[in-house]
């Protein structure tokens, strides 16, 4: 009973999977039907082969002509050739179509991925998402290709074979009919347990991968803190749990195939016993017995593969569910009914009105309002975690505010097509991210058609130009994964160049000068001021030096704007900004003081090691 339910369930899952993929299937309907035709034809012809053997045997039993055996042999070979052609056609068509559908789904998955908002990715594991585009896609292909191919093959083969068997001898056929389905029963009863056990193995495999991935990406920390041995120990705990679960799974799994083999053997034995008796009684001929036996042998594979197919369907539909989860995830941040396709950004005037932002239940921004007129500049300062990055992420619509609205050139940003919005914004993220392409390609990321000159100009503004001579292939040096071979400042300046090269109307720098020295910072700022003319700019920074010349400065504290004004206005307010200014000045004074202190114990000589002279 339980096993019946399992089968029905699997069938239901299978049908709903097919239903979900109906559009893809419909597109290839013609060729799929042709493939089905081939499958049916090849199976029907396959039934002829044992029949010819039977005829040949009976011909001999009846002391027929020796020349006839040759004719039988020729017919057999001819039939086999035609069957082969159909088999080839069927297999090729079905598998090729499954590859095509895989290709299409994967394309759609990719197209959908790039539409999803950042928070979707932050809540999931990278490895898991990548697996959906690779492993899960393969599982779906297997479900569509070998899965459907085998299911159809098996159904046709079983149905046709039983009919032919019934015409030869109904009683013998009933024996086979009773025994062979045992395979499905055994399979069904093992399967649900196997499935559960396999899930556990898979989960643990995920743990093993995650452990390894974390270790490899964090290897600098692991080494800096000499944690290698401990990491290995912790990895091996996960590793051995994986082995333990695998062995548990295998104990059952390795039972499956011998059991199938055994059942098919039982059918053959019963046939030998009953069929043998029938031959002795003269009810059937020896040839027919052999034919029967061959049919049973031929059915063994389809029966076993039925188990395999069920597996493919289960894995396929589990994978399909994982793909659907992504494909059906509707990005909240996307063009929708609110979007006005005509809305344009022409000047870059920003107005933020009563904006609040909450992550889960962490209130980050509360009732923020400010304006940046077109062509003006705004600086945002504030403590670590005050919500500065969050605020600019709302302007780019990386996140959506929980309350309030943002306007650009009078249009609510949700009405502006995303592409238009993003075209207008040049953004430098706080954490540099570079792609593994050449430096030039990275800088031209916003517009691949960009000329060499534009690239060099942008690099000049971000002051990376002076380092390029040291790169092995200059502009065409390939940047390693995430830019590992660049210094911190070089990465950051590449990011600035990329945003500048885009020639945006609105420029956003999120603490983007933090890793460059003061000298370079000053150089960049000097060039930026020219670049920023007639552009709206928002700059997040911690240093007074980077913000003091901005048209307006906002101080963000605990998610609220606590101070606002020009540098001079804020200094006179004697609030947070003033304190910040004092603090940075104080730093200067203290260094001066330290410099003034007589420093007896260390003179330069101690440090300039005499090693050179040794």
């Amino acid at each position, binding site marked *: 009973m339980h096993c019946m339910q399992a089968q029905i369930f699997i069938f239901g899952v299978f049908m709903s999977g097919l239903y979900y993929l109906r559009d893809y299937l419909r597109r290839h309907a013609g060729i799929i039907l042709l493939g089905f035709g081939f499958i049916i034809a090849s199976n029907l012809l396959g039934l002829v082969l044992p029949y010819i*053997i039977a005829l040949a*045997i009976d011909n001999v039993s009846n002391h027929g002509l020796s020349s006839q*055996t040759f004719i039988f*042999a020729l017919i057999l070979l001819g039939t*086999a*050739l035609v069957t082969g052609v159909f*088999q080839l056609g069927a*297999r090729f068509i079905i598998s090729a179509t499954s590859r*095509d559908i895989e290709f299409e789904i*994967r394309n759609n998955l*990719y197209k959908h991925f790039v539409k999803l908002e950042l928070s979707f*990715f932050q*809540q999931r594991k990278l490895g898991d998402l990548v697996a959906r585009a690779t492993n899960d896609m393969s599982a779906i292909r297997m479900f569509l290709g070998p899965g459907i191919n085998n299911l159809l093959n098996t159904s046709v083969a079983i149905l046709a074979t039983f009919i032919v068997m019934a015409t030869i001898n109904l009683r013998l056929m009933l024996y086979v009919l009773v025994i062979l389905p045992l395979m499905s029963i055994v399979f069904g009863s093992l399967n649900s347990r196997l499935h559960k056990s396999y899930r556990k193995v898979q989960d643990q495999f995920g743990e*093993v*991968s995650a452990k*390894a*991935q974390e270790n*490899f990406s964090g*290897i600098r920390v*692991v*080494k*800096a803190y*000499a*944690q290698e041995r*401990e*990491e*290995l120990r912790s990895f091996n705990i996960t*590793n051995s749990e994986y082995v333990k679960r695998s062995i548990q799974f295998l*104990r059952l799994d390795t039972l499956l*195939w*011998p059991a199938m083999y055994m059942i098919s053997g039982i059918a*053959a*034995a019963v046939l*030998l016993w009953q069929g*043998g*008796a029938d031959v*002795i009684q003269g009810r059937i001929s*020896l040839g027919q017995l052999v034919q029967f036996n061959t049919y049973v*042998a031929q059915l063994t594979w389809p029966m076993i593969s039925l188990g395999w197919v069920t597996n493919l369907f289960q894995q396929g539909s589990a994978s399909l569910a994982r793909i659907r989860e992504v494909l059906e995830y509707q990005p909240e941040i996307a063009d929708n009914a609110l979007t006005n396709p005509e809305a344009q950004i022409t000047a870059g005037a920003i107005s933020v009105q009563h904006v609040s932002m909450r*992550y889960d239940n962490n209130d980050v921004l509360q009732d923020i309002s400010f304006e940046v007129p077109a062509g003006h500049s705004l600086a945002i300062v504030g*403590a670590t*975690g005050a919500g500065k990055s969050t605020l600019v992420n709302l302007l780019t619509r*990386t996140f959506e505010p929980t309350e309030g609205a943002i306007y650009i050139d009078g249009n609510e940003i949700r009405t502006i097509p995303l592409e238009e919005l993003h075209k207008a914004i040049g953004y430098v993220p706080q*954490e540099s991210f570079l792609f*593994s392409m050449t430096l030039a*390609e990275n800088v031209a990321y*916003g517009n691949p058609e960009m000329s060499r000159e534009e690239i060099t100009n942008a690099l000049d503004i971000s002051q990376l130009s002076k380092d390029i001579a040291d790169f092995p292939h200059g502009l065409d040096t390939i940047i390693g994964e995430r830019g*590992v071979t660049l210094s911190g400042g070089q990465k950051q300046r590449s990011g600035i160049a*990329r945003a500048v090269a885009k020639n945006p109307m609105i420029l956003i720098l999120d603490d983007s000068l*933090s890793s460059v*020295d*003061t000298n370079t910072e000053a150089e960049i700022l000097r060039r930026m001021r020219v670049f920023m003319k007639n552009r709206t700019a928002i700059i997040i920074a911690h240093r007074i030096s980077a913000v*003091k010349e901005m048209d307006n400065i906002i101080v963000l504290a605990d998610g609220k704007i606590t101070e606002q004004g020009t540098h001079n206005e804020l200094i006179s307010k004697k609030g947070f900004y003033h304190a*910040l200014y004092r603090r940075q000045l104080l*730093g200067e004074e203290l260094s001066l003081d*330290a*410099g*003034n202190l007589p420093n007896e114990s260390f003179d330069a000589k101690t*440090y300039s090691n005499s*090693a050179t002279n040794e």
Partner: protein
Amino acid sequence: MAAVFFQEDEMLGKAYDSRIVRRLWKYIKPYWRRLLLAMLFLFSTSVTDLLGPVIVAIAIDSYITPTGAGTALSLQARETGVFHSAALYIGILSLGFTLRYLQGYTTAVMGQLIMFDMRSEIFAHLQSLSLAFFDRNPVGRLMTRITNDVDSLNQLFTSGAVELLGDVTTLVGIMIVMLIYNLKLALITFIVIPPLLFVVSRFQGAMRDSFRAQRIRLARINATIAEIISGIQVLQLFNREKQSFEVFRNINNDFRVVSRRSLFYIALFFPVITIFSSAATALVIWVGGGDALHGIITFGAWVLFFQYIDRFFLPIRDLADKYTTLQTAMASSERIFRILDEPPAVQDTPEPLHLAEPVRGEITFKNVWFAYNEGEWILKDVSFTIPAGKSVAFVGATGAGKTSLISLISRFYDIQKGEILIDGVNIKDIPQRELRQHVGAVLQDPFIFAGDIAFNIRLHESRITDEQIYQAAAYVNAAPFIEQLPGGYSHVVNERGAGLSVGQKQLIAFARAIAFNPEMLLVMDEATSNVDTETEYLIQDALEKLMKGRTSIIIAHRLSTIRNVDHIIVLHKGQIVEQGAHEQLLNQRGVYYRLYELQYSH
């Protein structure tokens, strides 16, 4: 594009490579008893498999269509005889079932144990490799080694090699029984074998190339998706959705095109084998039929040939699968061995020296030359000494080599010329583990592990108490925000610290260095670059306390952050151009003076 990264994955595997096999043997060796047992089961299974058709043949000749002595039997006796044969058949079948299960289970368990050893060894070896290796190898590739490649090796042990051996035994067994039963018919049937072998080998060549091509394309799909997901925000803000899709479509299509090629071969293989097996059957019908007519062979023998031909071609049908399994496994092991053979660029000496306890922490550079890539000197003839317990700041333009210099002290990379000494001992003579236990580095990239905050501070170091964690967090002013997180110190953060602000990640990384309490402290300037001034000031205060009596090196872009140091070294294009105390340097009116003036002149 990212093509350079794939070269290593494009290795072509042979299905059998004796060098690799000999090496793999080392992993099997500890389990040779299991292997022997599995072999024993395997051979016994093959024998029981062969016996089935023989029983049928005997039943036919003795009872069903008896010749000779059997003709004398009554119908009743013949039926009983058939029944006994069937019973015997089932008996042998049950034996076969048990043996087959035992064989499968034994091999599978052996495979798992070997995989455990292998994964563990790869992981351990990777731990010993230096950073230069990780700079060259994307994480995705290393992941493939330890997961997919190890798995395909497992396939080799469990399905590939063992089953192949089983198949070969069965094939040879079938041939022997056939020869014994009827020499002539057997030899005639074997006529199909040479052309079969020829065709199979042709297929293997074609499939091998296509499988290799497929693997490379799949790796490309993998890498592309991983990269765009990591950089999704940049991709979207730069409106690259459509273009990047075009690029991806091409990669994806490439994969489809090459896999279509292998598809054709796979689709063709099966029918071709069917035709061969039918050709053999046809021969048996023709020649055997004639012989049977003339009473040269019995019906039983003739039927036995039909049955054996079926069984003969069964394993050959999935030979193609097994062959690819083997060849994939060989390529995988080659890639795994290549990693295992990668010598750690930074190695401990066989006769290490130890730092005298208590470690004082005097750091000396003597004419140090360093390059990441040959010929491109990053540091040129750098010499200095930092007396124990004193602090030094490195200043200089971005890209001057400050970060590189500091990572040399932890011996992340080895220098090409000169030497680096700690308490007078060359760091090349100190075991790396010991060295790094005394040198705490706050790195440029504040890496956060997926785990709770406490783990991120303490890592695996159980000697660090909860109390010390709180203290360290308080020192760097991280405590206020950590305590606000749901769960506080046991709050679990996502991969790469998503959900924390950048400054918060830096603070946690800083707290980590402080909790470890090393004798020598190295702090990268970027370590606090994204932290606000107030917090930075607090950290400066904390640092001042920490630096007391502790050798410390700080990299600074902001001169305000180096107010506490005893000595300043100015680095320019990999060379020391100035050094001295703050005032001294100001008086020199050199590079430092210009830096300083620039920073405070507005």
